[in-house]
């Protein structure tokens, strides 16, 4: 019998309902808490699936659902809980580890998925068709889950809402091929989460359409990341994937290095302009895209991420005059943004690039750490 993908309302409500599981003591309580949120005909089965997001943090992350009497199952995975520092640290840990298909993936997502994969595998054992849903961090975990289950012989469908980038190109290219036509990635133009982490992490599907909601938004806001305000509302309004599909107008993000460097340069002339950091990040990403450095080579190198980036930038300097000027411009702008007056010549060493990157990382880490500490001090909210 032909398999019908979950509709946008069904998949978005499954991705939303699993958040109730965080507060549930057992599956019976989850059934009550999620009863008004699950789409009709979908019922939880098995048990609540826990995951580790740190050495001292284990919490309910996923649930397996029966899709009516079809014999199909749905794995749905929750995202970052607002007050959980451990959930946030999962997002921050952007090193790489081998993923479920052996290709490197984001370390935080990989560790967390590894801590729950046995229970997920057990929960869908004997089922051919498995739909995997997730929002935010849950979308990244769902992506790893779909790759894992597909590799174990299931036929997987993947639905993500506002998910961050889960892995570099080799993982997502492999997954995109294996699940061709069965990946439904929904993102909101005003949602900041799908924009991170930066290169070399990329989304799946690597090629083909995603589903863009809020295409005319002019601002970025945490509200645009919310399931109820953005994704469920859009999914309900569209009803079908065909209606949901829009021309993927991503022109704003396809500007080249020169555009982003110009924006970053403007930001350095305005004290405290936070978007300068964003523009600097986009500039690096654009430079990498232009020079097309092999991500596999980067990933395979026995170096830290900072070393990898420094090595890649240094290679960019060697490749061509225009690219070299972009890199040098980025270095100057970044140093200026950090308030460091330094004379930069026409060429730089890898060690100097690494120094700049580390300064950049430390400046941002200090700000982010201050934000986290303030969050912890307040305890809640």
């Amino acid at each position, binding site marked *: 019998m032909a398999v019908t993908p979950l509709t946008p309302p069904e998949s978005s409500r499954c991705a939303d309902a699993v*958040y*109730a599981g*965080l*507060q549930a003591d057992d599956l019976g309580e989850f059934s*009550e*808490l999620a*009863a*008004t949120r699950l789409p009709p005909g979908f019922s939880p089965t098995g048990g609540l699936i826990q995951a580790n997001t740190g050495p001292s943090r284990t*919490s309910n992350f996923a649930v397996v659902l029966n899709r009516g009497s079809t014999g199909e199952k749905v794995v749905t995975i*929750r995202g*970052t*809980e*607002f*007050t*959980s520092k451990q959930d*946030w*640290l999962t*997002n*921050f*840990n*952007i*090193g790489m580890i081998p993923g479920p298909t052996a290709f490197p993936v984001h370390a*935080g997502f990989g560790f967390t998925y590894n801590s729950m994969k046995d229970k997920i595998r057990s929960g869908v054992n004997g089922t051919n068709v498995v739909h995997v849903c997730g929002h*935010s961090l849950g979308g990244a975990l769902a992506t790893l889950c779909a790759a894992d289950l597909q590799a174990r012989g299931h036929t997987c469908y993947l639905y993500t809402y*506002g998910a961050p980038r889960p892995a570099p190109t080799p993982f997502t290219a492999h997954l995109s091929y294996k699940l061709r036509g069965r990946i439904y990635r929904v993102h909101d133009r005003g949602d*900041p989460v799908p*924009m*991170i*982490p*930066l290169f070399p992490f990329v989304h799946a599907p690597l090629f083909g359409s995603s589903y863009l909601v809020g295409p005319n938004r002019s*601002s*970025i*806001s*945490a*509200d645009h*990341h*919310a399931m*109820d*305000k953005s994704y469920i509302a859009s999914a309900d309004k569209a009803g079908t994937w065909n209606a949901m599909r829009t021309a993927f107008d991503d022109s704003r993000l396809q500007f080249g290095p020169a555009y982003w460097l110009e924006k970053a340069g403007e930001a350095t002339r305005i004290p405290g302009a*936070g*978007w300068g*950091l*964003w523009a600097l*990040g986009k500039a690096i990403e654009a430079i990498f895209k232009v020079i097309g450095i092999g991500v596999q080579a980067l990933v395979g190198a026995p170096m*830290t*991420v900072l070393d990898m980036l420094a090595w890649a930038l240094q290679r960019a300097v060697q490749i061509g005059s225009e690219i070299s000027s972009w890199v040098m411009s980025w270095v100057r702008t970044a140093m200026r943004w950090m308030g460091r007056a330094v004379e930069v010549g026409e060429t730089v060493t890898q060690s100097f690039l690494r120094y700049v990157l*580390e300064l*950049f*990382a430390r400046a*941002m*880490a200090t*700000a*982010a*750490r201050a*934000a986290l500490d*303030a*969050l912890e001090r*307040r305890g*809640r*909210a």
Partner: protein
Amino acid sequence: MFRRILLLGLIPVAAVAFLVMEVPMASGKVVTLFSEINGTLVNGSGSPQSGIRIERWWRYGTEGDGESDMATTGQDGSFFFPAITQDSTWAGILPGTPSIKQRITAHGPNGDVKLWFAVKNSFDANSETGGAPANVICRIDQEPNADGPVFGTCRLAD
């Protein structure tokens, strides 16, 4: 090495925070943990149930025992709980999903009845009821179910 990777990982998060900090609401926001409840407690024939103690409980996040308050139904079966709000520095800035567990229990003559049982995953007022004011009629003599805005015996009043 882990620390270095962690530091680098903070960059995009800080970028996001800085990016949205340019929005005026970054100075702080009042968030709603439990929306205002205007309720009426009735039995199966619609008769108001007076003098019944109603307990409201909620827990923000997953740690701790939560908090609670009480009300007693009036002659017309009515009860009222004010909104539970809190100032938040980061709501609207950090793109995480809040989690507030909620329960309202009627301590009736024949035992406790679960009127309201939900997880609130939004900071918005009245998100429990799809944006509508939580004016509800709750049954004291019914098995809780999912026919209302949340699991329980409460239904939105017309």
